[in-house]
């Protein structure tokens, strides 16, 4: 089973939901009663194993990993039944997402078939130099709002001085965030993940920070604990911290 997982490539999947559906199908799990501990373990293992994490989709995988860990933590909470209010299963939202996604994934097969059956047929294209046009310049057929916006963007980029139009690109790397977290842990024995999240405005930084935590966890530079009372992650120094 493990070796099989090794061969799976992140890019085989359209996203975290797709991967979860794959794991559910592979292990013949019940989608209405997902064994959350097992699937979280397999999912994390997969995300760690995926060699070339391309940031674009990796971020979505990492966010899902965080969601799974959150659900897992909630599942551990003792259920305090009030009698009246029914307590919602922490897995419900994820389950609904998976079911909804499954419907569209299924429909995608139909689209793929329609594409294939239409492929051999080519539409007649009327002569472009036709005398019905008012002038000889290339006529753009069926101009859409998108074309207007692209054209304006193109014109304005060429018009303005490049210097006045430079966009500050926020750059953050995994090693920078490892350094950042190490610095914080020198000063503090414990860090709250939720507290860290509040510091960052961009999703990109959140994602890279989470990846940095996973990386440090793997190297045993940090330990991560989940409190019983809150579903927050508590980060503390690991056995190899500072080595």
């Amino acid at each position: 089973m493990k070796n099989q997982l090794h061969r799976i490539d992140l890019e085989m999947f359209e996203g975290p939901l797709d991967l979860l559906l794959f794991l559910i199908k592979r292990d013949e799990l019940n989608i209405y009663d997902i064994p959350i501990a097992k699937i979280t373990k397999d999912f994390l293992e997969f995300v760690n194993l995926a060699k070339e994490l391309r940031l674009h989709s990796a971020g979505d995988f990492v966010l899902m990993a965080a969601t799974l860990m959150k659900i897992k933590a909630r599942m551990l909470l003792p259920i305090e039944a009030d009698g009246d209010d029914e307590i919602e299963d922490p897995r419900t939202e994820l389950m609904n997402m998976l079911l909804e996604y499954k419907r569209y994934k299924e429909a995608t097969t139909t689209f793929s078939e329609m594409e294939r059956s239409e492929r051999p047929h080519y539409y007649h294209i009327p002569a472009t130099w036709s005398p019905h046009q008012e002038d000889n310049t290339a006529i753009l057929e069926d101009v859409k709002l998108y074309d207007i916006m692209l054209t304006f963007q193109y014109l304005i980029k060429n018009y303005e001085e490049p210097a006045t139009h430079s966009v500050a690109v926020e750059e953050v790397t995994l090693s920078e965030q490892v350094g950042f977290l190490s610095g914080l842990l020198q000063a503090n024995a414990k860090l709250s993940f939720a507290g860290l999240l509040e510091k960052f405005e961009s999703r990109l930084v959140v994602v890279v920070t989470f990846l940095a935590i996973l990386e440090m966890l793997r190297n045993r530079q940090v330990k991560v604990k989940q409190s019983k009372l809150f579903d927050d992650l508590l980060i503390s120094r690991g056995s190899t911290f500072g080595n």
Partner: protein
Amino acid sequence: MEINELKQIVEALLIATPEPLTETRFHTCLGDSVSKIPLQEVIRELTTDYEQSGRAFFIKEVAGGYQIVTNGEFEPYIKGLFSKSGKLRLSQAALETLAIVSYKQPVTRNDIESIRGVSSDSSLRTLLDRKLLEIRGREDGPGRALLYRTSTEFLQYFGLNSVKDLPRLREVEDILAEDDQELV
């Protein structure tokens, strides 16, 4: 106007039209020369003609109108006309995005991403570039997000007369039942 004259006019229109020829557009073209024969009947007659004389094309009912398309058997030759050896196929991601837009339209990028669970910028871009999707106004809500819809080109690409012709989105119970059967 009698059928033979109409057949010729409709044929000329089909050859000249850059978009599907609809009943309405046909009547605009006819102008004052009113015809009592519906377009559909003229099309039927032309179709028979083309079949009998072994033409390499036929008339396809698409996007609410009619358009001339080549017979499938000539694809191997026609491919040579286009630099990237024929039509580019859509990626799985783009097909997923299209499926969501076609069943739920109009939708925002957020709607798409929350169903797919993955950011969908690049598929949206591909689909806009290929004119299969178009931006159509904004949502009423506070965010006023842009709304996306499928286009006429979408219908042409998948050979559909209207979005209503799409197979119904299956219920999840049906899909799961089928999955179970496969396992047995």
